């Protein structure tokens, strides 16, 4: 019973904060609404017995990444979203088609398919840091190394981007 109630709260929070992210005019409010979504998703992870991923979600996602967003929003200052005619408006119908296609196909596929083993154990250790670390280093070592490479490339790329932007303004 507790699981259903927690799931309901988390799902409600996820969807309503996500609606805020999509529809708030103010960039700052949209970013703060994203924190709500990410924390609700972390709650879902706890219900799914993945406490380690939930902790990483709160520490990395809801804190570090959102702080980056807020920092850039504060740096760029208050500015209204561009309004007026959109060059891509004639093509909007295809976007809606894709959205409804994905929604309808996904819903039908989920509701009509039978998946998974008959029963899942009620107590399990898959969410423990030990088992995640073992899975990372035993089975997914290439993904692990690729991850570190991605982070390195991102850091170098960010430095180069910033350096070029400064050079364009005449600095070093």
């Amino acid at each position, binding site marked *: 019973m507790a699981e259903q109630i927690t799931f309901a709260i988390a*799902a409600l929070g996820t969807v309503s904060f996500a609606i805020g*992210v*999509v*529809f708030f005019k103010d960039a700052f409010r949209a970013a703060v609404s994203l924190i709500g979504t990410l924390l609700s*998703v972390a709650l879902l992870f706890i219900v799914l017995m993945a406490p380690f991923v939930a902790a990483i979600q709160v520490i990395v996602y809801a804190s570090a*990444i959102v702080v980056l967003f807020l920092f850039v929003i504060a740096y760029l200052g208050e500015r209204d979203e*561009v309004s007026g005619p959109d060059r891509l408006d004639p093509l909007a119908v295809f976007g*809606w088609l894709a959205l409804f296609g994905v929604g309808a196909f996904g819903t039908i596929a989920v509701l009509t398919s039978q998946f998974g083993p008959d029963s899942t154990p009620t107590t399990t250790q898959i969410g423990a840091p030990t088992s995640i670390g073992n899975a990372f280093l035993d089975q997914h070592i290439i993904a692990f190394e690729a991850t570190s490479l991605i982070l390195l*490339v991102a850091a170098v790329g960010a430095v180069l981007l910033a350096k070029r932007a400064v050079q364009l303004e005449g600095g070093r």
Partner: protein
Amino acid sequence: MIVPMSAYLILSIVLLGLGMLGVMRRRSPLLLLLSVELMLNAGNIALIGFSRMWDDPSGQVFALVVMVVAAAEVVIGLGLVVAVFRSRMNLDVDEMSSMTG
């Protein structure tokens, strides 16, 4: 699992749809990135749900990799936003067409 897996998948579809809607609606690249985060989280919910269903930690490993990719994407994306802002002062994704062939 007391809550059926299909509930998690439906929630994931809803979140993905909201993210797609945001990518379509928003014209500021900053808010576009926020919507992309929503879509990545929709994927993560499905991954963790399947991990629980099969009682296998691989899904959680995938979710962690997705988080790293999201972090890298945000760093590069925000770097681009700031670089474009400094050189052009106008934040509209439709205006950024200098790389069209």
